[in-house]
């Protein structure tokens, strides 16, 4: 089947000849899409419109611009929630594809546009749907955008918290100044001692936001396995995903050993603590 047959609306208006030998540069100045890219763009377009959230989030546009006047990203980027809503509303696979390359990542997800929209559109929500599709299809632009998130994704997937105090390293957060990152220099003790001075035992760690019990972290990983999140991540970064699977396998072994070690204490327990095996 020709690529053209997959492309809805605008793309379908291309003739077979145009699709076979498209111009090197389109009038918009955008880089010419490869055939593979057109195929992926068409698939994403179909999936976007088939997502149940599409009908709920995209209701129409009065062109009032209220969304954009309040948008923080619009002040600093070539980005406008009104444009994003209209891209979502129009039947154009290549325009959607273009927006996925960079624009979707400018959004701050503050929901100011949603609050101001007289039509009740969920603009922040529809941008999230676009982002999900760019992750699911492992777009190269998405890989580049999310490349700095390896450490925080590792934390998130293995213990369910996004940051840890040992991530706030002076070299990386130099712009935060000495008091935000150099507590050991300021107070002449190690970061571990600084954490000990927090009067909540579960926060006395540098490795995650708080200590998370092994059972809890394994339950979380089960959620990721069962709901397709692990597969999403595999499409984006297979190496990271395999590393995560290895980490979790070790934790499962640790959990099984702990169940033997604490068998007498667990004997009278009921509910998830008694039945969950990792």
């Amino acid at each position: 089947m020709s690529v053209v047959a997959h492309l809805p609306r605008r793309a379908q208006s291309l003739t077979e000849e145009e699709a076979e030998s498209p111009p090197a540069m389109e009038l918009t100045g955008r880089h010419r899409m490869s055939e593979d890219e057109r195929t992926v763009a068409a698939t994403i377009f179909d999936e976007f419109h088939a997502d149940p959230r599409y009908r709920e989030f995209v209701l129409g546009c009065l062109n009032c611009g209220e969304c954009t006047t309040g948008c923080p990203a619009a002040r600093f980027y070539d980005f406008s929630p009104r444009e994003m809503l209209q891209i979502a509303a129009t039947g154009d696979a290549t325009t959607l594809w273009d927006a996925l390359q960079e624009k979707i990542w400018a959004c701050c997800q503050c929901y100011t546009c949603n609050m101001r929209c007289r039509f009740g559109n969920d603009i922040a929500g529809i941008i999230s749907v676009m982002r999900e599709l760019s992750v699911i299809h492992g777009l190269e632009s998405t890989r580049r955008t999310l490349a700095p998130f390896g450490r925080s994704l590792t934390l998130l997937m293995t213990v369910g918290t996004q940051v840890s105090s040992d991530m706030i390293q002076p070299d990386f957060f130099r712009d935060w100044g000495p008091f935000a990152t150099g507590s050991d220099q300021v107070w002449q003790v190690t970061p571990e001692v600084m954490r000990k001075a927090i009067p909540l035992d579960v926060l006395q760690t540098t490795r995650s936001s708080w200590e998370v019990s092994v059972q809890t972290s394994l339950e979380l990983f089960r959620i990721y396995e069962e709901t397709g999140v692990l597969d999403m991540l595999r499409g984006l970064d297979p190496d990271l995903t395999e590393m995560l699977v290895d980490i979790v396998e070790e934790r499962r072994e640790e959990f099984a050993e702990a169940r033997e070690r604490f068998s007498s204490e667990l004997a009278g327990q009921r509910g998830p603590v008694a039945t969950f095996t990792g």
Partner: protein
Amino acid sequence: MLSASEIRKVVEERTLHQKGTGKKVVDVREEMERLEDRGEILVHHIRPENRPVATTTLFGWTKQIPTDRLWHHKSCGQCGNIPGYPSSLLWLMNETGRTYLNEPHQTSCTAWNYHGTATSNPVALAAVAARNFHRAYETDHFPLIHCGTSYGDYKEMRKLLVENAAVREKVRAVLRKMGRDLVLPEEIVHYSEWVHVMAPEILARQQHPVRGIIATVHEPCHYYKMVPEDAIYDDRVYAGQRPAVPSGILLELGATVADYSTWYDCCGFGFRHILSEREFSRSFANLRKIRPMVEEAHADVAITSDTGCVTTLDKSQWIGKAHGAAYMLPVLSDVQFVALALGAHPYKVAQVHWHAASAEGLMTKMGIDWNRAKGEFQEYLRALKDGARPELLHPAHGEIEQFFAINKGQVLPDEARASTLNPTPPRSEGRGAD
């Protein structure tokens, strides 16, 4: 800015429009009750022992805020970056004799990641929410949510789970694989709502006057923009035209809450931006928030009630020196400010030393002897370095809890279905339980 009557008009118009499109603006709690009656979900009810206080939401609905027997749902950014935020809250609960659990058996809501990288999906987010809800339920402590994003996300997930049977069944199937069931709390409650309704007890304990302190409030977007109908409003705060929290408690304490032109703007956190595109976050925070707060309102302190907002507004200021604009306005959560006003130790409890913009000038204005407190804290650090045991706000967890979410007299779903009898109350961790 819209007046209260204009807001109501917009709400009515939106309701009419959404009725026409099949999209509803209804009180999701009513549908939740119907599902409970049909046995499709369990509801974690607020009970008399939770000592609830009634408030009013934007839509005029009554929202009960439980004040006792609470399950602290921590915030991942808060605990990694600004630990004085949860420690001040738990200290305040001890001071007011409230019981609580602060457990390792919880994950974050994972919504920071979702809003930053989209490497999740609604079913996963709903399952994460439901797992945490179930854990709170089985301990018989009502969830109190520390983070604005978790609060907004959980309300979105509650709505999704109530209105979408297919998602509900997918989530239930996942939960059953870990021995859990689908439980939704009767209310989704943000800690600042707890602070707001605790005002009488807080005022009774105030030690440091704050009259003369000018505070500017940053209203966390995810508190009131994600699910607007459920945020609480109070006619005594900006005539009910802005959320009641966190401004209300500042006014009650006697501070001047000063307005500024960009109050409606976000902080610049951006979820992805604060980690990988900080040029944006720091520019937005400095130019659109801190500068107006200082130059228009002459603020002594910026107060907010969300993890990302405190982090962004606080950490983004130092780099302003590069442009001759190092305002270094102290940025605190409402509960840190309350703790300081009530005489909490600035370093051991409020943990102000984690903040990039120093709060020492503010503390001087509040009449707090921070120099002495700082000396005590340095002594304490030396003692910890030499192996002393840390001072804690509640008893430490045992080794078994590093591994297992152990039974604390929990309510099991099957038992709850079989009987409406109250479960045996478990023992809380909070000092007030003793």
